[in-house]
């Protein structure tokens, strides 16, 4: 496996802090975000695998339910959303496990200046390489399912708002199940009920549009969920990490 991110993440901040220069959280966050992105993109195959999985799931449904255009158009948004949910879940299975296994997670939980920021940086980087990528692939799925251009726009907007919440939920599940046997299965069991509201509002937005209703209500509810999730789940994830390393 490749080198875990934390040693490079922790080192510059501690050296600069020890030199007495105050480090702005914004600069630190930006640095951590770039580092996390670099680490993720180094393992490019993982990112591509998650996206291919997403495409594969959406491709499977027509085989199972038939290829009638009206049916696919009706089912399309829901299928995309469920596939996005599963893809995000899978790509987060090893979000923290490397650092946990070699003990550096415990170290940076104790010593990093802004551990919550580091958590956000990691999840943010992971979202950029999974949630955003999935959103950008939505037009491809639109071809498969015969969705109209405005539907695709609503779909992409709903994915953009909803996938960060999914990433946060998945990260919470990952943090709770660190080092546990069959963690991915447990992660799914833990995360999926909590993800239902996002699913309802996300897929519902596109469904509303297709039914001729303004999707504004759905999208604003998604936005509200996002606004709630970022602070609350961020804190919960940090708490879960501390629990998992027994602090």
């Amino acid at each position, binding site marked *: 496996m490749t080198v875990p991110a934390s040693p490079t993440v922790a080192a510059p901040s501690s050296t600069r802090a020890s030199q007495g220069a105050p480090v702005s959280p914004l600069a630190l966050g930006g640095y951590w975000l770039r580092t996390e992105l670099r680490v993720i993109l180094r393992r490019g195959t993982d990112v591509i695998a998650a996206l291919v999985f997403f495409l594969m799931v959406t491709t499977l449904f027509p085989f199972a339910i038939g290829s009638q255009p009206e049916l696919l158009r009706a089912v399309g948004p829901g299928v995309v959303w469920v596939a996005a949910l599963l893809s995000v879940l899978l790509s987060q299975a090893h979000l923290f496990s490397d650092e*946990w*296994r*070699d*003990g*550096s997670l*415990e*170290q940076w939980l104790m010593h990093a200046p802004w551990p919550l920021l580091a958590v956000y940086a990691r999840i943010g980087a992971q979202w950029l390489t999974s949630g955003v990528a999935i959103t950008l692939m939505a037009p491809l799925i639109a071809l498969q399912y015969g969705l109209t251009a405005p539907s695709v726009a609503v779909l992409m907007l709903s994915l953009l708002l909803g996938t960060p919440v999914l990433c946060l939920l998945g990260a919470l599940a990952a943090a709770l199940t660190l080092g546990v046997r069959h963690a991915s299965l447990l992660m799914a069991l833990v995360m999926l009920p909590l993800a239902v509201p996002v699913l309802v509002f996300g897929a519902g937005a596109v469904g509303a549009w297709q039914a001729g209703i303004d999707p504004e209500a759905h999208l604003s509810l998604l936005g509200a969920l996002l606004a709630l999730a970022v602070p609350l789940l961020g804190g919960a994830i940090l708490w879960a990490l501390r629990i998992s*390393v*027994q602090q």
Partner: protein
Amino acid sequence: MNASGWLTHGVFIAAAFGACALLMALELWWLRRDTAQAVDEAIAAGAAGVSPVRSAVLVQRTPTASTERAQGDRA
């Protein structure tokens, strides 16, 4: 919707109340059995002569990777 009576829908009513009674009885039976097992285990632990003060819960602390490394450093 038809106005129905005990005869036509007695099965459903019986199944509902029966399931309730059965599940509760099952749970109580299981808990009785579990407690009896716990009692046996406690008695066995006492008979094995382990010191009563030394609680496994108190003393044991799952070593993490970092504490194991520290232990290795000091050894």
